[in-house]
């Protein structure tokens, strides 16, 4: 590929937590290019930090020299990031946020990811690892505002 028509920025980095501020700078800048406010950019950076931290901690067991790929796609009004690891595929059912009532350290990451992003999705990737896709839409166009065509009112009901 020698052309890049798609407004995608690709990044490959070592799984070392020292790169987390760099990732946030990158994410905040791309979200800004897409038109998000400074506040929204910060929240998106938090969601992405949680996703990458989980790969470093659980996916790679704290090993700091594995590879993580980020695909940042930020057309106007939307921000999407794919976080690709080269570990093993994790059953999404095993990744769940704990009930917030139990106050204990840990177990807040997935909850914060879901609170800051509109969509959080885990998929097996071509390298045997997991790709986590996080999507955020701009407040002006809430993704849930559109009724799903035919649902609840169709012939079957």
């Amino acid at each position: 590929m020698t052309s890049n028509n798609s407004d995608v920025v690709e990044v490959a980095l070592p799984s070392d937590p020292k790169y987390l501020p760099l990732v946030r700078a990158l994410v905040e800048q791309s979200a800004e290019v897409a038109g998000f406010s400074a506040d929204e950019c910060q929240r998106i950076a938090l969601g992405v930090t949680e996703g990458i931290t989980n790969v470093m901690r659980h996916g790679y067991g704290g090993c700091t020299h594995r590879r993580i790929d980020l695909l940042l796609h930020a057309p106007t009004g939307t921000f999407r990031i794919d976080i690709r690891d080269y570990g093993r595929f994790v059953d999404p059912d095993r990744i769940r946020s704990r009930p917030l009532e139990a106050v204990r350290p840990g177990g807040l990451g997935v909850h914060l990811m879901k609170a800051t992003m509109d969509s959080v999705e885990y998929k097996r990737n071509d390298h045997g690892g997991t790709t986590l896709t996080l999507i955020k839409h701009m407040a002006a166009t809430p993704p849930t505002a559109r009724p799903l065509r035919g649902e609840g009112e169709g012939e079957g009901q």
Partner: protein
Amino acid sequence: MNVVREDHGTAVLLVVDGQVDMHTSPELRRHLRGALEQQSSPLVADLAGVSFIDSSGLATLIEALQGVARYGGKLRLVGLAPAVKNLFQLSNLTSIFDIRESRAEALEP
């Protein structure tokens, strides 16, 4: 991230600056543990200089909260910027932590 410790009698103030994440929270934990070992109370964390904090930072603070409870001490937070306060809200932690408005108030016995 940078942590500066100030001793005020049995009270200890930790002034935290910068970004708290998986990379830096171990250092914050070290400072908090040091104060916990001395059974400091109140143990105050001033987060006014914190521009970013994630779930690993929150976990570190929850650990400290459980730590002071063990000897009947107090943990107080002060200087939360709007984004940080928002994070505590998202995590349902505003009622669990003792969040104060000024350093002086947070350092009272």
